[in-house]
């Protein structure tokens, strides 16, 4: 069984550190891949650009997606993921500062599996990450890796 990868799409390095720490605190030791903007995230997911030599059989178990991102924003990344057969069933959790109603609606409409607002209080944030990891990495039954088989 392959290692379960978490893809964190986050441009703020502080938030990356805090997320890593929260994961560690919750004893979630899965491989964390960090993409600093939307374009990098898509490269990783679809094995393009810097990630063209990536092993495409290893898809992230869950993607933690910020919305406000350089280059390509989070909602656009989500749209691309959902419109590709290889990735359309990938669990995507929006993890963002905003609780703007419009973001929530757009996120869910585009097929986000969950929407979590990062609390300012670190303990609360850590708790959120813990529950998230527990759910998506342990409790949740992941979809088949190659969805093309089903669709063809």
């Amino acid at each position, binding site marked *: 069984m392959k290692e379960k990868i978490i893809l964190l799409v986050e441009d703020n390095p*502080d*938030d990356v550190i*805090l997320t890593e720490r929260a994961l560690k605190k919750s004893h979630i030791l899965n491989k964390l891949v960090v993409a600093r903007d939307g374009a990098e995230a898509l490269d990783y997911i679809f094995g393009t650009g810097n990630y063209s030599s990536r092993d495409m059989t290893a898809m992230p178990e869950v993607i933690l997606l910020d919305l406000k991102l350089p280059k390509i924003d989070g909602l656009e990344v989500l749209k691309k993921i959902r419109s590709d057969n290889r990735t359309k069933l990938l669990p995507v959790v929006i993890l963002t*500062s905003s609780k703007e*109603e419009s973001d929530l609606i757009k996120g869910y409409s585009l097929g986000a599996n969950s929407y979590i607002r990062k609390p*300012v*209080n*670190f303990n609360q944030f850590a708790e959120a990450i813990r529950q998230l990891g527990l759910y998506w990495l342990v409790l949740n039954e992941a979809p088949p890796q190659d969805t093309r088989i089903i669709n063809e």
Partner: protein
Amino acid sequence: MQAETRISGIEVIGNIPWGTHFCQFYRTKKDLVDTLIPYFRAGLENNEFCICITADNLTAVDMLKVLSKSVKDFSGYLQKGQFELVTYREWYLQTGSFDSARVLQAWEEKLNRALQKGYDGLRFANNDIWVKKNDWCAVTDYGAAFNNVIGNFQIIALCTYSFSGCSTSEVMDVIRNHEFALVKKADKWDILESSRNKNTREALIESRKNLVYLASFPALNPMQVIEIDMTGKVRYSNDSTNKLFPDLTFKGTQHPYLSGILELIQQAPPLKSGYLSRQVEVNVRYYEQVIYVFGERKDIRIYGHDISDHKQAEDLLRETSSYLNSLFDYANAPIIVWDNHFRISRFNPAFERLTGRKSRDVLGLGLDILFPEDKKAESLHQIRRTLSGERWEAVEIPILRIDGEIRIVLWNSANVYDNGGKQIIATIAQGQDITERKLAEVEVKKLNEILRNRAAELEVSNKELEAFSYSVSHDLRAPLRSMQGFSQILIEDCNDSLNDECKDYLRRIQRSAEFMAQLIDDMLRLSRITRAEMALHEVNLSKMVREICTNLKNEAPQRKIMFKISPGLTAYGDEKLLSLALENLFENAVKFTGKVTVAHIEFGITQKEGRQVYFISDNGVGFDMTYANKLFKPFQRLHTIAEFPGTGIGLASVQRVIERHGGRVWAEARVGQGAVFYFTLGGKTDKQ
């Protein structure tokens, strides 16, 4: 009308008028027959009653013989009684001697009978053979008298005299007493006239012609021509009168046509014009009468004509004209009329008010005085266009008032044409002073422009605000998270090397970061309240408040809070916004009763300033009314955060919600004695 002349039958004489009295001098019997036969033939054939007075020289038998031989159907005339033969004895000498008065009367009777029988008149011939020398004077007097009589009647008379029986003086007398004489000269009949008689005869013929001609004037006149005497008896009425009023002669002044006429004449002052005039109504027709009184007999002559149609037209015209004048004078709209030389011919009172000019001052003047100098040419050009038949509908032409003010006037015009309908004789124009409207239009345009700019600005600033709050919501919290998070990491990782003071500082950083995050959230919420679209429904406020209170109780299980909620309170509004406002108010109530043993919080309605208002009361710390005006301002607080936590956004949010519902919110409180918050939701949204 009778023919004015009769046929004499005697070639050399030709036609003669009624009243002609002539003679013939004969030598032989044949001479007599020569004239008498054609003379009577003409009379018989022309519907005249004929009498032949025979003498011894030409007896009745002789006469009948020659006449029946020479006149066609003579026996028919005889049977009808159109011809009579009388001997001179029977006629002239009934009493044995000549009595001129009796004979004249007899002629008059004969004539009347003839007329009664339908003859046009009387024609006779007589022979003077009976005249005795001693009677001659009497006969010549008779001749003169006879001339006077028959001159006025439809009588033609021929007297025959024997040349041989008359002396020269007698011949002269005869000729003098007749209009003319027939004598035979060189076997031809010729007319012999005394110069006096000739003139008289011509004058007579002429005057008779004139008389008949003149008589035709009243008779043929289609107007009424009537003569009455001073007793009111109708003496004459012409044909058209008789046709119109067949009973006029019979009724006299009892007839409505003549009634009151005698009184009018009696009462009338002496007439300068020579006549009176009046109008009478007979059978819904109107007649105008001109009345003359003249002559010694005081005859009254009336000339009348029917003026009904004229009067009707006149009445109609007067009525129409009166309507038009009233319309013109009392119209609120300025009305002006100008002739085809653009001179002012009418100017109504409204126009006087518009221009400040008096009608009498401008009549006859050119239109150009009405226009401001710089618009004169243009305005006159517009006006000239009406000459080609153009009508204006809402043409704008400014008017210069006498005081120099300029009024903007909207004009309609119509042309007035002559009888032929081709030539424009005047133009009538009606104006509407739109100066105020124009100014208002300009003002409205200006305001609209400002409004449009404002709206555009507002839209821009709304968009900016949206972008701003989006950015705030995303970016402002991230640094706070770092501050809070890394402080926590420091406390956790360096717990042993940090003294208590340092740990306290780090916790202060954390609290500040969290408070600021709260502030940001509240600010965004407040701005969302202002921007959110409202969905208005019937909202059950009592139920909503119950749910809020249940939640609040659950959040503070250690508190003793007594909620009293009036049931059945509803309002019309946006459920989400109202809920947010009520949540804030009840959170406040709970918060500020935190220091009393048992909190009493009540929700209901009450009367305030004559209307129903909602209220939320508590028995908490209350506040100083001096600062009541700060209560609803964002980020304004009446208590320290240490005493009662909060960002100062709650009541500002409440006020925005209430105001968006068209209502008002205010509070009454005293320090230490609780507070009451009142609110209304606008006329329509209050509880029914």
